[in-house]
């Protein structure tokens, strides 16, 4: 009888142990949230690292994830504008709506780049009026994001406040240690010119000290025209660019052509950690850095 009672008690207390349900829009944020949350809850990513975060399908099962969520961790700066608002409406969950305690916009934690100073409109392509949203490519921004998420989760779950803070501090310590080694590894590349497909590498090139000469896209989100590709090719030859950086969800043909014509190297990487397969943010950055060091080391 006593065992039965204990079992019942255990069953009843299960939901409390399930902890916070956190949903992150992109896998890098899911990976960082995982570091902060650890065993105090579950983390789900709404998109894949092989998927362009600007164009995620608003599949109804994602609304279901949001309906159950205690917190939504997002990149912000309109990166998810094409799909997240619709899911938020469908989720019927006031906790994570804009203004809700569980709505965690990580762009508020970091120093932003490429914030337009003058008037912007869509003739300039897919510009983000609030600034460049690809800050997760810079591990220094990830520090701020981890602490920011910890503070917000602590507000949602005060009992775990200490755990979140120390988890974030531990993550940042490991990340900073790794970052120092990455910086040493990439030091020879400092000042080298690169071409990137989309303007998604601003934070990364700033961190590593690479000089961006041109983007394969003539304007953010606009596919290249032949004239623009010719212009990029000329710039690459003029500045002796040996590296092209792009995400796997952008077309490969044009960057490959540029690589072949200039004798350079092309680095194609996923847009974030392979969260579903258990890859951490540090492992993901480590992978990118080593691939870059290997390619960039060649003449």
């Amino acid at each position, binding site marked *: 009888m006593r065992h039965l009672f204990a079992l019942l008690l255990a069953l009843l207390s299960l939901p409390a142990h399930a902890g916070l349900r956190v949903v992150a829009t992109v896998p890098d944020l899911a990976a960082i949230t995982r570091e902060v949350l650890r065993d105090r809850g579950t983390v789900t990513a709404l998109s894949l690292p092989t998927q362009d975060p600007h164009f995620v399908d608003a599949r*109804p099962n994602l609304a279901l994830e949001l309906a159950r969520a205690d917190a939504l961790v997002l990149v912000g700066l309109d990166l998810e504008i094409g799909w997240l608002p619709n899911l938020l409406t469908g989720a019927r969950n006031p906790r994570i709506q804009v203004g809700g305690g569980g709505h965690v916009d990580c762009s508020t934690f970091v120093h932003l780049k490429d914030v337009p*100073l003058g008037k912007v409109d869509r003739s300039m392509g897919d510009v983000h009026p609030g600034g460049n949203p690809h800050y997760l490519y810079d591990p220094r921004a990830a520090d701020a994001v981890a602490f920011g998420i910890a503070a917000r989760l602590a507000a949602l*779950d*005060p009992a775990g406040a200490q755990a979140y803070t120390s988890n974030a501090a531990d993550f940042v310590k490991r990340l900073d240690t790794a970052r120092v080694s990455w910086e040493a590894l990439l030091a020879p590349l400092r000042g080298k010119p690169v071409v990137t497909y989309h303007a998604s590498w601003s934070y990364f090139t700033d961190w590593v000290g690479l000089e961006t000469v041109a983007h394969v896209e003539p304007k953010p989100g606009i596919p290249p025209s032949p004239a623009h590709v010719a212009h990029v090719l000329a710039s690459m030859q003029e500045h002796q660019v040996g590296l092209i950086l792009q995400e796997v*969800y952008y077309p490969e043909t044009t960057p490959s052509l540029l690589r072949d014509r200039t004798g350079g190297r092309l680095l194609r990487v996923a847009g974030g950690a392979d969260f579903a397969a258990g890859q951490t943010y540090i492992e993901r950055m480590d992978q990118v850095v080593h691939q870059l060091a290997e390619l960039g080391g060649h003449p």
Partner: protein
Amino acid sequence: MYALLPLIGATAAWAEDPPAAPAAPESAPAPTPAPAPPPTAPSAEDLAAIEAALAADSAPAPAPARGAGGTQSMNPDISFIADVAFAWFSAEEPLMVGGHDPTANGFTLQQLEMAIAAPVDPYFSFHSNLVFSLFGVEIEEVYGTTSALPGRFQVRAGQFLTRYGRINPTHPHSWDFVDQAVPIGRLFGGEGNRGLGLEATWLAPTPWYVELVASETYAGGESTARSFWGAQDPGFASPLDLQTTLALKQFFPLGSDLSLAWGLSGALGPNPTGLGNRTEIYGTDVYLKYRPVSRGGESVVSFQGELMHRRRQVPEDVLADWNGYGQVFWRFARRWGAAARYEFGTAATGLDGTVADDPLDPEWTALRQRISANTTFWPTEFSRLRLQAHTDLAGWREEPDYAALLAVEFNVGAHGAHAF
């Protein structure tokens, strides 16, 4: 309506399963900066009191202001969508069914749509679609949606497109084809099924996506509810004078690359052919989409189809007909897509199984089929060019009709995302 108020008030207490979460303020109150010493310095006591008062006033500090450049605005999201077409028809009177379809040779301003959306307050969001044509303005939709009801309920009130089936709740700018699907135009009218009313939806706590929809709307309107009251307006005497729409929407994510949505719908309401006569429209819709996001692919292949069965009580008979469409869409490059569509509608038959006199479409005495194909070019997601052709095989016409449509669409402003 007053019954809703306690519900809304109770929302905070209803929060489903927050692990001991008192609604904490988003951030600590901003520290009050030390004021510059004024000409006649107040006493330290006064200063302390002022600081305490200011600190108390600013206690529920708003979210921290963004570092730089954040676009802050209290204006609603406003967007305009223009659809212009150039058309050629082989028939003198083409059988186009949509209120915004091109219907004559030459240029047509299909519509200038203005979409307005914004949160009203923490409890409601507002949405409206106004359509401007060359000769007037039409309020297609204007409704408020609850955003904080407990128990996964959501209520819409106002004028809205009913959520019957898959294509009916959507606007032309999200269609794969330039023109309206024949079943929608035939059963509901050129504007699609909409009305003034109230809708409640519920997201079931099932492991997969299950949404239940129920709405009551005004059953009149020649181009919005033609199988119901249609052009007649006998007034409102009982709830049976309204159109009831019921729908079940389910979604199955078959891995990360394949999606399946399946719906069942019913629209029930009065028709004006006799006292107490009713119309029932039952349907099912399916949408299967393949998009290889797990491999970084850009292509999309989708199939969408709907089948609708209508039954109408008329004096001394019950008319029945079947309608449907199926369409395949293939986005084969980042900027290019192609689509093909088949639509059909049978003649209305009576209880004896023979073709009966249809009071709505007297000429519709045989099977009508239409086959369309188009290709789309998207310069960006904010503009598209489409070339479409169709052949319309109306059984009651001596020869098929042919048509070619060239359409361009522009979308400016802030426009909300579309449903999957």
